[in-house]
């Protein structure tokens, strides 16, 4: 796991559930360092967590693979990008609360951009105004 300091967040971890806690800590610290309010940081943590949870659940098969998280400042906001190198398998979680992750991210952030799943995996970028 590598991370750079104040101006940018850039980490790669195995796409496994136990790493989510550490990723949430990094998002929280980065958001607060960039001057975001407590409630805004709470939104960021929840949204990034769901994006990362999607990668953990859907990006890879048995062999697993990497989860990339980047964060940076952009004008009056913060951008987070969650990406993977997984294969295109879009299988929604069964049950009444399945498929709520992306709509939740849309509610919590100002802008969401999804690329893939495709040949080079999936990339989800979300922007939060400060």
């Amino acid at each position: 796991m590598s991370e750079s300091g104040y101006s940018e967040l850039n980490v790669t971890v195995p796409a496994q559930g136990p790493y989510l806690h550490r990723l949430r800590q990094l998002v929280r610290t980065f958001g607060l360092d960039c001057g975001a309010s407590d409630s805004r940081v709470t939104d960021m943590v929840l949204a990034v967590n769901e994006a990362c949870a999607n990668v953990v659940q859907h990006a890879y098969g048995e062999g697993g693979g990497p989860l990339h998280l980047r964060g940076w400042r952009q004008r009056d906001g913060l951008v987070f990008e969650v990406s993977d190198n997984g294969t295109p398998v879009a299988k929604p979680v069964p049950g009444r609360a399945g498929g709520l992750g992306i709509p939740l991210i849309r509610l919590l952030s100002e802008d969401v951009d999804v690329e893939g799943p495709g040949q080079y995996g999936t990339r989800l970028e979300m922007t939060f105004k400060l």
Partner: protein
Amino acid sequence: LGQLELEQVDDVVLVRLHGEHDLSTAPSLSERLRAFASEGYGVAVDVGEAEFVDLAVVRALIHADEALRAQGRRLALLFGTSCPVKRLLQLTGTQEMFACAEDRDEAIALAGATNPARSAR
């Protein structure tokens, strides 16, 4: 990370969530809640002390509620005063799925109630 505190009141188990609960802890939570349901207990879950809960946990609660409904019961949910879990449920429109209680006694009463039409007793 996340811890569970269990308290038994008659035939109801009150499960208090402490700390952070997510995709990595949701399966064991789900398993325990459904085990209580299949053993005939009512289940109340207090999320008021939880610092973080994600959608995987909401799904675990929904699945536990489904198991309890099969026994003629409902999962009772207890929130704190400024509870991040309540906001998550409101944002995702899943709050209406649960029997929500105002305090501990109401949560235990809701969890203990059985539907006479479907109860085996």
